[in-house]
C-alpha cells in the first residue's frame, strides 16, 4: 500500500478498506504490544490483548472521530481499558511485577551479565512496584513509549500540566522511597 497520510489511511479504514487498516496496524502494533507487555508481564497475555485492541479498533473504527484525540491515543485508551479488565478478571492471581517484565524481555542476554545489574535494579524495582497503577502507567508511557506529557495527558484523560505534576510527584516519591533504609533487596 502506498504511503498515505494518517488521516487518509483512517478515512480509508473507516470505509472498510482492510489494507488501510493493516497499514495502521503496522504503524502501531509494536508500541501497543510494548505497553501491554509492561502492564501484564507476560508474552502470551500481551499478544492476546494486543490482538483484542486491534480487533476492537477495527470493529469501532467507524465510531472513531477526530476530536483532537490522535489515533494512537485512542488505541492506548482501548489498550488501557482492556488491561484494566484483564487485571480485574485476574485479581485473584498475584500481579506480575515490573521487575519480572524487565527480566523477561532480555532473553538473549547472559544470565551473569544480568546478575550484575540485579542488585542495582532491585531497589528501584521494589519502590516502582509500590507505585499506584496510574503512576506506573505514566512511567511506562514516558520511558517505554517515549511519549510527551501532552500525549500522555490525552491517553490518561488529564491535562498536560496535571501529567507534569504527577510525573514530578512520582519522581519525588521514588526518590524518597529509595532513601528509606528499609528498602531491602530480597
Amino acid at each position, binding site marked *: 500500500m502506498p504511503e498515505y497520510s494518517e488521516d487518509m489511511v483512517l478515512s480509508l479504514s473507516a470505509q472498510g478498506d*482492510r*489494507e488501510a*487498516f*493493516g497499514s495502521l*496496524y*503496522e504503524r502501531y*502494533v*509494536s*508500541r501497543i*504490544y*510494548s505497553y501491554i*507487555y*509492561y502492564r501484564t508481564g507476560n*508474552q502470551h497475555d*500481551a*499478544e492476546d490483548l*494486543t*490482538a*483484542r485492541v*486491534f*480487533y*476492537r479498533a*477495527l*470493529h*469501532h473504527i467507524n465510531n472513531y472521530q477526530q476530536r483532537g484525540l490522535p489515533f494512537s491515543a485512542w488505541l492506548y485508551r482501548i489498550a488501557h481499558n482492556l488491561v484494566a*479488565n484483564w487485571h480485574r478478571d485476574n485479581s485473584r492471581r498475584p500481579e506480575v511485577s515490573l521487575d519480572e*517484565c*524487565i527480566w523477561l*524481555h*532480555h532473553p538473549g542476554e547472559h544470565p551473569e551479565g544480568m546478575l550484575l*545489574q540485579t542488585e*542495582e*535494579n532491585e*531497589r*528501584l*524495582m521494589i519502590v516502582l512496584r509500590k507505585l499506584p497503577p496510574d503512576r506506573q502507567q505514566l*512511567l*511506562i508511557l514516558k*520511558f*517505554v*513509549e517515549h511519549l510527551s506529557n501532552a500525549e500522555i495527558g490525552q491517553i490518561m484523560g488529564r491535562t498536560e500540566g496535571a501529567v507534569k505534576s504527577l510525573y514530578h510527584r512520582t*519522581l*519525588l516519591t*521514588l*526518590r524518597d522511597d*529509595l*532513601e528509606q*533504609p528499609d528498602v531491602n533487596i530480597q
Partner: protein
Amino acid sequence: MLNWLNMPWQKDAFENLENLESDLAAVFKPVEPSPEFVKDLHHRLVNFPVPVSPESSSKIPQYIALTIASLLSGMALIGFIVWVIQEILGRLQPHEEHTVSAPHTATT
C-alpha cells in the same frame, strides 16, 4: 548504573532527579513482539471477518432479562406472602363464623 542507589547517605545524589530519570530510562526498554505474531495478526485483520468479541456485544438484552426475572421473582414472593397471610386468616375465619351462627340455629 544506579551506583548512587547503593549510597543512601549521599543525599546530594538523591536530590538529582535527572539521575533517577536516566536510571528509569535504562531500566525500561521497548519490547518488540515476535515477527510471527505480527505477521499472523496482520493476516487475520486484513483477510478474515471481524469476530464479535463477548465484551463488544450488547448487554442490554441480558439486563432486560435480569430485570424481568427480578420483577417476576418479587411478584411471586409477594404473592406467596399474601397467600400465607390469607391461609392464616382463613383458619381463623371459620371459627368466628361458627360462633356467630350458633345462636341463629338455636332460635330456629
